[in-house]
């Protein structure tokens, strides 16, 4: 159900305008996004739905600065961020955005705890990490507890179940307290029950911590659990649909 309070009028936290992106597959150019746009207010939970190949993941990647658009702009808090230097993009990705993917991509050589601490390890230099190691560890322990994985801290990803790994990925994405969580098919690889658990976690985080979530999915029922759904078809936004009683 949608709560109208989340629809704040005013400046969006993040907005992507008229994003176009074409992939070069050898001889053929595949236009994935054709002037798609999306904006989210702080604390919104938005789902982007479309079929595979509709470019929804690409839109997510562009917004999270994992990819650059051929045309269009991305704004964060009114500031343009898609044309920044690589170092600045890396910083933003580390501080502002959190990513989770359909395949959980935990680093196999690290334990769960180390995986969760990874963004902070990246953020700090060796010396900085050493100085702040207690706080960093604390933050990791806390977020791990929030996702319910405190009992699996020392395990390697190979020893975790699918649901646990996705929770771990969520913990990793959130340990650095990002403002925006970008989720690419977070339940795509999970069974219905585990998937429901993940969705429940996401909703709780969104509700309790006002975490802005933009989630991509191809599943209608999953998409419906967000505040609003944006439909992407052949690279274009179909229209904003609100769930309402009618």
């Amino acid at each position, binding site marked *: 159900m949608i709560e109208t309070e989340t629809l704040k009028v005013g400046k969006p936290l993040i907005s992507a305008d008229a994003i176009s992106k074409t992939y070069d597959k050898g001889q053929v150019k595949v236009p994935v996004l054709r002037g798609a746009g999306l904006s989210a207010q702080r604390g919104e939970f938005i789902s982007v739905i479309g079929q595979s190949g509709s470019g929804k993941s690409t839109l997510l990647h562009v917004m999270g600065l994992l990819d650059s658009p051929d045309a269009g702009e991305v704004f964060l808090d009114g500031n343009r961020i898609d044309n920044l230097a690589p170092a600045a993009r890396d*910083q933003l990705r580390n501080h502002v955005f959190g990513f989770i993917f359909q395949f959980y991509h935990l680093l196999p*050589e690290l334990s769960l705890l180390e995986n969760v601490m990874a963004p902070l390890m*990246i953020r700090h230099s060796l010396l900085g990490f050493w100085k702040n190691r207690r706080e960093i560890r604390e933050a990791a322990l806390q977020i791990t507890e929030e996702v319910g994985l405190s009992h699996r801290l020392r395990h390697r990803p190979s020893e975790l179940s699918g649901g646990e790994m996705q929770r771990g990925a969520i913990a990793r994405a959130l340990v650095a307290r990002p403002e925006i969580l970008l989720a690419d098919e977070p339940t795509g690889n999970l069974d219905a029950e585990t998937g429901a658990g993940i969705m429940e976690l996401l909703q709780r985080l969104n509700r309790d911590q006002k975490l802005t979530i933009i989630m991509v999915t191809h599943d209608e029922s999953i998409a419906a659990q967000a505040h609003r759904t944006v439909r992407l078809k052949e690279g274009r936004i179909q229209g904003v649909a609100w769930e309402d009683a009618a």
Partner: protein
Amino acid sequence: MYKLLLCIRYLKTRYIALACIVSVMLGVATMIVVNSVMAGFSTEMRDRLHNFLSDIVIESRGTEGIPNADVQMDRVREAAGEYIAAMTPTIEIPGMMTFTDPWSGETFTQPVQIQGIDPAGKASVGPLHDYLDSFNPVIEDGKTVREPLRNPGDSVGWELTSAGMEHRRRNQERRRMYLREIQSLGDSLLPGRKPSGSASDSPDFDTQPAPQQPGSAVAPQEAAPSDAPAAVPDAAAPEFDSLLTQPPEQSPEPSSEPSPEPSGEVNDMPGDSTGGNVFLADQQPQDSIREEPLETRVYIGEGLVSFQVRDEETGRTRKVMMVQPGDDVIFSTVTAKRPPEVTKFQATVVDSFRSGMGEYDGSIVLMNLESLQKNRGMHRNNAITSIHIKLHDYANAPQVLKALEQAFEPGMVSIRTWEEKQGLLLSAVEVETAILNVLLFMIIAVAGFGILAIFYMIVVEKTRDIGILKSLGASSSGVMSIFLSYGLGLGFVGSSAGVVLGLLFVRYINEIEDVLSWITGRKVFDEKIYYFFEIPTSVNPWMVFWVAAGATGIAVLASILPARRAARLHPVRALRFE
């Protein structure tokens, strides 16, 4: 921090990287072992060459030598005295040595380099004590088989040891007994002859082949060691033990039956005072055997008069000396006349020496300088052919060379350092070492390509992880440095292991050689072929360092390409990588 953590984890978990480590390790170990062994050989060889040659050698142009050794040495002292630690005059001349092998009874002649020396002087410019057999114990298989015959603290001279005198006496006894048999046989065969009980008869051998007076006839004759001077009109007439001037001696084969047949070839030298009698045998070295050692004394190089005998039961090889201290040998060489004339003379062997250099031990005899001078007719003007000089500090050699060149008339002498004299041999070793190093470094380069290949595969394998890292905000350079430090870590581990392995190998190289010889059934390092009994090694710490650093460097270099690939991966494509 993530870079360090990941690098360490990759090192620990990737066993394929062990292959890289092993290849680096082997390359490093090989280089260390080979360099150490070559350096060991080179150092040993240099030492042995150097010891035998002394720092600087002044040599006369011709074999006539330069006159007035004292004056020449004064000149040297004046020119460069403050650099000079010791100096000794020598005569160096090629010649032939004739000796008899008691085992087979054969007489051999070999070419030799005769070096006339003053033992005290020679000992001051080089380690003469260490070379001479009588001053050193005989050690077989690590056990002392015979103690030194002389006190190592004594100065070196030309006296026979008591063992030598004993040997000489025994030879003479045998000779006398043999003679008596011959005499009695001869008397019984030819009753008409007057009984030749005394050995002092001057033999007339035109008609009688059989009873040939042995050279021991000479023994009671002479009171004084020096023989009747020959009627050689030269001012520089050879004296001493000269066989040209002695009464004709005939020599039966020492161990053959006293058969009446004439032996051997004819000695038909033009100046031979034996008159070319067809029944005369070759002169045998021990013909003039007498109680007293002859005036001319020599130290003989071991290699000249020894051979190896393999004991079938124990498998050990023993060295057998054909000539012992106390034996006599004959030398043929040329006098200092212009042009030279042949001269022959006998000498008593006083000692044998081993310098460790096969070349020297197999060709050099050291003779007392005064006798050589007399035998070559160089004694009237005290001529010598070379001066050996030892410096306080070899680094001063260039200055000394220059000073000496000015002290002598140009063209009269050649003045060289020992390195210049042996330049060919030394530079050959250097060139070999350089080439070997290049080749061996190729091994490490090959290891580097292995690292390149394996790392590339690892990066490919890690593509998605790299995508994740980038999505978390890791920079491209950060990702690159993960793999660069991975290469550094691998190189370091491999090099360290290689250093340890290499040094262990060097330390136990002789034991390893024993095992290899046992396995293959042949002696891998045969001291008969090489100059040394143990494989000489010399580890240079800088060499070890540079080899390890070079190998690590190659490992890092090899990881650059894969690391760059990792850095350049596009995050999205990386994430989607199957």
